[in-house]
């Protein structure tokens, strides 16, 4: 309804196409997460929208797609197609084990004054030195790191792809994310820059929002070790979100980080 602009609106604006200045949830929806056989295909939808898994706003940009095969090597998305409401692509699972499919956005914003006029800049780390003029004053710089990811498994689950990169907010599964069952508890660890992220709020939203009146969204807070546990009330796709803002970074650059993970819970 009312489209409120909140801190990560910039992320939404960058990820969404067409450009918009509204805050929406970023999500990735796998067509399946548990596969058997010698090989398999999974199709993914990615979008920014108000309700998770309801593509009613804008497709997500995927210029920064990072797919890891079970051995940790990079894999390629196929059949990329950007629709108005959702981006899709396919992944050929040609090796058994667990794959990590992530879209990771990493960009910098700067606000500065030049000749008494306030100006803004956005770009990558490499572009920043050239992007901010030498006579700029009152420069404030921030970095935005947003991860949208899911896991899929062909055959026996493996754990090689769980290793965090040490950049921004990440989820390290303790319970395997392709081994989740309704009524059972699962444990994860939230990491910020490779270290446990204590006392952070995780928002948990379930698919099928359109077909019920109560969103049945829940939150859980991470412990001192960054750990949290979820007992899945029922089967479905679940969206796990965490966000930190204005974290002090290196060279006076503040960091805004967000994690959006999707897991499937089977009956």
């Amino acid at each position, binding site marked *: *309804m009312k*489209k*409120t602009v909140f801190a990560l609106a910039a992320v939404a604006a960058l990820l969404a196409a067409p450009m918009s200045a509204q805050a929406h949830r970023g999500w990735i929806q796998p067509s399946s997460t548990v596969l058997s056989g010698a090989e398999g295909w999974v199709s993914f939808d990615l979008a920014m929208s108000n309700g998770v898994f309801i593509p009613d706003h804008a497709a997500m940009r995927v210029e920064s797609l990072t797919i890891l095969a079970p051995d940790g090597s990079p894999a390629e998305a196929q059949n990329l197609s950007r629709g108005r409401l959702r981006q899709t692509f396919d992944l050929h699972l040609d090796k058994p084990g667990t794959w990590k499919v992530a879209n990771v956005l990493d960009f910098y914003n700067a606000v500065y004054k030049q000749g008494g006029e306030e100006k803004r800049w956005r770009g990558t780390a490499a572009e920043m030195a050239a992007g901010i003029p030498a006579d700029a004053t009152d420069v404030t710089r921030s970095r935005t790191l947003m991860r949208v990811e899911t896991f899929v498994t062909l055959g026996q689950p493996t754990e090689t792809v769980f290793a965090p990169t040490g950049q921004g907010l990440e989820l390290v599964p303790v319970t395997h994310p392709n081994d989740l069952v309704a009524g059972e508890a699962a444990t994860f660890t939230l990491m910020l820059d490779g270290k446990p992220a204590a006392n952070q*709020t995780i928002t948990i939203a379930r698919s099928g929002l359109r077909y019920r*009146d*109560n*969103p049945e*969204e829940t939150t859980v807070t991470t412990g001192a070790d960054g750990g949290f546990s979820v007992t899945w009330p029922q089967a479905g796709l679940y969206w796990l979100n965490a966000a930190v803002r204005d974290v002090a970074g290196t060279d006076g650059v503040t960091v805004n980080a967000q994690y959006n993970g999707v897991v499937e819970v089977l009956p």
Partner: protein
Amino acid sequence: MRRLTLAFSTTLAAGLVAGAVHAADLTVTVEIPRISSASYHRPYVAMWIEQADQTAVQTLAVWYDTKLPNGEGKDWLKDLRTWWRKGGRAMTLPADGVSGATRAPGRQTVTIPAARLRNLPAGQYNLVVEAARELGGREAVRVPFRWGAANTGRAAGTTELGAVSVAVTR
């Protein structure tokens, strides 16, 4: 018992003779609950009168985000699912005296002047209030009331709406 019968037949007679009831106002009071949420948005709300068989008779009020450019606030009117299906989709908004901005949590009162209900035949109706909130839930509350004589009705929601009361005053 006698008085009740008398009142009922008077109403019937008035309805039969006049065809409609004049000079009665309808006042609806709705409690919009205060909901603690990191991303709270005021709910969209629709109010309408329906017959006992749930046929919609007349929309009384629609509160939505009227300030967004290009009427974008209308994109979410369909989330008032029941109202949308029963009449909202046939309306053109904004509508004078019906549509307005969303309202803050707390007690909100709407008075419908008699003139706007001049075509409503006397009888038993439900006043329906439906609320839908972005990143929140949806709820509809039905309050029975009688049109044709002074009376009040009340009901309450449990999630997106609090107490709802209807008063017909002569």
